């Protein structure tokens, strides 16, 4: 049984510099890194020290909260540096990569014959587990819980997003193997959600053992939270797991070969890129190996991920574990003379108080300006236009601000993640840091639930 769901509220922001559907090989990555900061809520405990030799798939650290959850080296080599920040927080575990990759070998029986516990065991052991995340809380799945369903969003609707139909072209076998593995993890269904108005890649269209649902509409239609809300909403005490489609294929490859192959396709996009395209590289690749001088002059911001939810990185840093995209935006710090009253033709706004609505098909070259200062809430009804949930967004945000746990639960905090509020944050007249507020609320509840 498949469903077709229309998302009405939302907004597609058209930005300049989408990645062309051409593959390029990234420069050989001399180092790769894992950043514990990518995994929200974990307490990393190191298993290796600087100078240790590791194989691809050797655990580097584990989570003290859930000791089974291990994080492994994507490539073989030597642990070159464990970079620490304030209070000795581990920022990056950097591996100097060998010329030839050596893999940790796992004995794999045919996945069809395994039960859920066995699959879970081997995924935890091999370091694949962090690819499985959960709602509520938007963190790595708690292996001790049983999810009522597993969701895979086969498309990303955010600005300049990578096209998974393109990325997974020809990977039908590994994708299907991945589906078979993760479907063992739940007694419920596996939902594969594709874009309704384009033809999905064969890997998706021919996937077996899943319920394929079609979604039509603007961003955030591709967010897994929106899809869960419309298909199988989460109540207090329930859990749903979700996996990125490219990670499903990585999981599949592991169950075919018995080794952790960290290859990953990353889309390089943004107005400051000369030739935006797709790069074949690995998890934790250095940004520089992808950028490789392919950017324009001037002050720039590098974002691991998309412009709505990605994290800002240095040019010398590494792409995040959950990011399949590297975006380069212009950075601009010039104050604007009477900018609040000027026509501002080049700027984008969801509101008609400016003029961008006259040019719905224009590709905008936006910078990272706030375009105003933070203010108390004045305007209402603005979030609702870009927030396709049966939830009152502004009231939920306010309940988090005043730390009212009962209201947060009643208003539906278990169904949302910061990324679902990204557009609210963009359109907010009062310039509220909405995503960090949501994260704060989720973390509070998650810690209470431990």
């Amino acid at each position: 049984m498949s469903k077709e769901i229309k998302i009405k509220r939302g907004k597609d922001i058209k930005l300049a510099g989408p990645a062309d559907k051409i593959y390029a090989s990234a420069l050989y990555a001399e180092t790769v890194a894992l950043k514990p900061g990518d995994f929200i809520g974990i307490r990393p405990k190191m298993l290796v020290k600087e100078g240790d030799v590791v194989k691809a798939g050797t655990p580097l650290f584990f989570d003290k909260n859930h000791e089974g959850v291990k994080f492994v080296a994507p490539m073989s080599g030597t642990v070159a540096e464990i970079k620490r920040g304030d209070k000795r927080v581990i920022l990056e575990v950097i591996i100097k990569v060998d010329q030839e990759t050596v893999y940790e070998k796992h004995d794999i029986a045919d996945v069809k014959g395994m039960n859920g516990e066995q699959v879970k065991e081997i995924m935890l052991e091999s370091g694949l587990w962090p690819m499985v995340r959960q709602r509520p809380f938007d963190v790595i799945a708690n292996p001790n819980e049983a999810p009522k369903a597993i969701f895979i969003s086969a498309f990303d609707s955010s600005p300049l997003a990578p096209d998974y139909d393109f990325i997974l072209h020809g990977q039908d076998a590994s994708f299907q193997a991945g589906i078979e593995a993760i479907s063992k993890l739940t007694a419920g269904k596996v939902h594969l959600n594709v874009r309704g108005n384009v033809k999905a890649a064969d890997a998706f269209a021919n996937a077996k053992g899943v319920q394929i649902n079609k979604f039509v509409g603007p961003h955030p239609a591709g967010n897994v939270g929106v899809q869960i809300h419309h298909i199988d909403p989460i109540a207090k005490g329930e859990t749903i797991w979700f996996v990125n489609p490219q990670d499903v294929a990585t999981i599949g490859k592991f169950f075919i070969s018995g080794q952790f192959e960290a290859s990953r396709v990353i889309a390089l996009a943004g107005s400051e890129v000369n030739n935006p395209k797709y790069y074949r590289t690995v998890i934790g690749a250095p940004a520089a190996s992808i950028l490789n001088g392919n950017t324009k002059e001037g002050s720039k911001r590098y974002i691991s991920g998309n412009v709505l939810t990605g994290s800002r990185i240095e040019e010398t840093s590494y792409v995040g574990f959950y990011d399949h995209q590297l975006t380069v935006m212009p950075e601009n710090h010039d104050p604007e003379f009477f900018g609040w009253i000027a026509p501002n033709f080049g700027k984008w706004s969801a509101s008609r108080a400016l003029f961008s609505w006259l040019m719905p098909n224009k590709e905008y070259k936006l910078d990272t300006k706030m375009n105003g200062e933070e203010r108390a809430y004045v305007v209402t009804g603005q979030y609702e236009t870009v927030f396709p949930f049966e939830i009152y967004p502004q009231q939920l945000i306010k309940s988090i601000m005043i730390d009212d746990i009962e209201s947060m639960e009643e208003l539906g905090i278990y169904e949302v993640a910061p990324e679902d509020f990204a557009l609210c944050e963009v359109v907010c007249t009062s310039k509220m840091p909405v995503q960090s507020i949501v994260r704060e609320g989720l973390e509070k509840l998650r810690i209470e639930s431990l």
Partner: protein
Amino acid sequence: MKVFRNLLDSVKPNFEKGGKLEKFYPAYDAFETFLFVPGHTANTGAHIRDAIDLKRTMVTVILAMVPALLFGIWNTGYQHFLALGQPDATFLEMFSYGAIKVLPIVIVSYAVGLGVEFIFGIINGHSINEGFLVTGMLIPLCLPIGIPLWMVAVATLFAVVIGKEVFGGTGMNIINVALTARAFLFFAYPTLMSGDKVWIDTATASGEALADGYTGATLLAQSTESATNYVNAAGVQYTDVFSSAFLGTIPGSIGETSTLAILLGAALLIYTGIGSWRIMLSGVLGGLVMSLIFNAFAVNPFMEVPAINQLVFGGFAFGIVFMATDPVTASQTTRGKWIYGFLIGVFAIMIRVFNPAYPEGVMLAILFMNVMAPLIDHYVIRGNISKRLKRVKVAA
């Protein structure tokens, strides 16, 4: 532009931490951000941001009030010369007479209100919000022209301090600030806020007030006598009272008389999405429904006033378009906005008709519904919560 930038940069050190005027940083910040949208960039969350901000929003609302203001200025002059028996005065004479009378009220309102905002900003050390930019224009537009300037100052002071700052400033107030000012004057100085003498400025050139021979009553006041027979300032009967009231060539508060000018503003607010069309539409519907009910059971002239006339008389249109839609004091949920607007329309006409001592029913209706708005939202949100709880039970 460069000049301003250099000036700002040269005085900035005084206001920063450690500078001798450190305490006044909010005041400096207000001027700096007024001249320049700061170049700061997104540090957390989304890396791109909408080009709109609160200043832009507020200036759009002010723009929407400009037609009403300009018309009010002209109408002040027009009514003056009409009452004096000089209807042949030129457009320019009327407009400049009106400007001399109206602009001081606007200036006093802004000066006092912004003064209070700055003082509170400095005391509390928070940046100065733009909320008063709109309030400062609303206050003059909802006052009669005969108002003494000191009363404008007192009312503004009262409204901003008691109506807003004690609740925590912009975005935190329960009732509409401009209406607080008006209600304060209405109850504190009733003789100067209603009756026949305040709506038209009848001072002659030599300074003495005009004797009898003109009628300064508003159409609402006249409605208690007859629903068909209205006279203008010169004592002549209106041939088409609806058209006159729609165009606005009638006595009344400065900005409220011309429904046409207000509709121009409404169009801008709805078009930009800054004013809630739901509140405006449901308010008009509420007013129509209540008027039609009164028409059906009419026992006095006021109840006989045609529904369509009720909408263009008095401050109904102005209140619905500019006051009821204030997002801070209105209902915040979509469904709540429909209920809130509709009830404002109903109560405005009800108060106006049942109690002619309070001809400005719309003011009281909006203030009452401001207080009720959180309750409406509460029930709308409870509805959503129980619906979502039920959904879970069905799924389970």
